């Protein structure tokens, strides 16, 4: 009897695991399949495989929606925001983890506590700040905002990494005549590469996917990000759903590529924050 019960439990377990697997994968697969169908085919048989795998929808997506402009804007914004974010947080992480100065611990705690801030509630202040800086409707507005919003998480990840680098290495470097700045650039920074990559990956994916502040802080189509761009497709494509889905698939590709290469980093980065301590 015990074995029968074990079989049933096992069955339920796998049904449960597979259900969530299906939820995560099937809608995506359906979207990708649809992006290769003709419009008539999609209207007649929404669930069927494409009769002919044709790329016309992708051609439409690029020509109608100016995907290349949107794509370039997102690449520029997400990359620059990530670099700025990593520079600012690694400088601070270095002094907080390697030097002693007044209010060091409290400063660090305040910055990390920023992860709990409901950023969405700051629509009005961010709009005011960006307008006052004269940055409204520029790529710089989003670069600065994205770099700033990700400070708490990046600072936390990089600092936890730098704290664990043995002090001896730096002492040896000082004896060899390393200056303060060289200790940062030549000793600590190279040794914390793994932490920098984790923080950078998270910031890049977040910035690539961000929607709310792209909507609020930009208005003209020349600086528009890809996420904002595809959210306007419903009107641009009218009812040509397959072409719209082709554009959505194109917008997903970079985050998926980054995830394929760095998923271990992403998973370890996310768990570090929640589980430690």
């Amino acid at each position, binding site marked *: 009897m015990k074995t029968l019960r074990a079989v049933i439990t096992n069955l339920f*377990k796998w049904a*449960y*695991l597979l259900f*969530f697997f299906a*939820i*995560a994968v099937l*809608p995506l697969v359906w979207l990708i399949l649809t992006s290769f169908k003709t419009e008539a085919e999609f*209207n007649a048989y*929404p*669930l069927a495989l494409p009769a002919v795998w044709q790329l016309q929808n992708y051609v439409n997506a690029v020509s109608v929606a100016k995907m290349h402009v949107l794509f370039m804007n997102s690449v520029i914004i997400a990359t620059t925001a990530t670099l700025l974010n990593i520079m600012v947080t690694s*400088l601070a992480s*270095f*002094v907080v983890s390697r030097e002693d*100065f*007044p209010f060091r611990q409290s*400063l660090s705690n305040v*910055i990390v506590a*920023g*992860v*709990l801030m*409901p*950023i*969405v*509630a700051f*629509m*009005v*202040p961010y*709009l*005011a*700040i960006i307008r006052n800086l004269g940055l409204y409707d520029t790529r710089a507005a989003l670069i600065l905002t994205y*770099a*700033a919003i990700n*400070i708490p998480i990046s600072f*936390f990840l990089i600092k936890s990494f730098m704290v664990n680098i043995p002090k001896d290495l730096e002492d040896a470097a000082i004896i060899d005549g390393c200056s*303060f700045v060289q200790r940062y650039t030549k000793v600590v920074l190279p040794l914390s590469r793994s932490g920098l990559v984790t923080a950078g990956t998270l910031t890049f*994916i977040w910035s690539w*996917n961000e*929607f*709310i502040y792209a909507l609020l802080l930009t208005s003209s189509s020349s600086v528009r990000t890809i*996420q*904002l761009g595809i*959210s306007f*497709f419903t009107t641009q494509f009218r009812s040509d*759903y397959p072409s*719209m*889905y082709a554009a*959505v698939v194109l*917008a*997903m590709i970079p*985050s*998926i590529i980054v*995830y394929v290469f760095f998923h271990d980093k*992403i*998973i370890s980065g*996310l*768990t*570090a924050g*929640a*589980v430690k*301590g």
Partner: protein
Amino acid sequence: MLVKNKNWKWILIFMIPITAMYTAFFIYPFGFVFFSSLTAWNGISPMEFIGFENYSKLLQASTLQISVRNNIIWSLSLGFLQIGLATIIAFILARRPRFWKTLRTVYFVPKVISGVAIAMLWKAVYNAEYGALNAVLTLITGQEWSHNWLGAFNTALPAIIAQEVMYIGYFMIIILAGVMSIPTSYYEAAEIDGASVWQQETLITLPVVWGIIVTAMTLAMAYGLRHFEATFLMTGGGPGHSTSTLALMMYDKIGARKLGEASTIGTILVVVGFFVIVTLNKTLGSKSLTGEDQ
């Protein structure tokens, strides 16, 4: 002391960028959102101080009541339903069944894809004419389904919440990491004492990772309060205002150039958010949210 550290100039220089950006984007907005909530302001002409008028005006708005109700539904669905589902997956995967690593990676995929793409995807699934959901239901039941899931009052909110609740990847990973850090010797000892799998999970795993589950619940409920993106993209708050949330209302107020009222909603979001985080941690047991060792 700063002066005692011979590198004090460099320390100052290294800390200036983060201090400036953090102040501008985390501390100043805090004060700004509260102050401007007490004003009538269109964003162009100077602010006019009007005390708590925005608050009393908002409390009477019927959209506010709907939004608050929806935010509560969101918070409870994410905090209990999503975390419950995620916890079960984490407990199963922690016993390292076949393909557990692949499953963990795949469950997280929807969380790397942008909210916009996910929203477009589900809008397509829920579409009345060509949607996959109606097509699947037609196939299973043999009857013609043409329900407009996002356009009908009774299914719009559940439809948006359901797609979000079922993406358990993020919280599953956090809870799984906690479960996997439990030494296997605990379970070996329990096994020798004749404890069943069920007993092991409820008497060992659950109490040990309870702190992490509470953290996850707190975060999930805070996300429920802030909810904006999926609803904005899938229904825009409609039909009527039936799927509106506080953040959506705030965005509409900005569009209507009522920035003072928008800030009032922003202030409510911040205050209620902190209240939720503090009370949940006090009532359900505490664990440092940021994982900082104090």
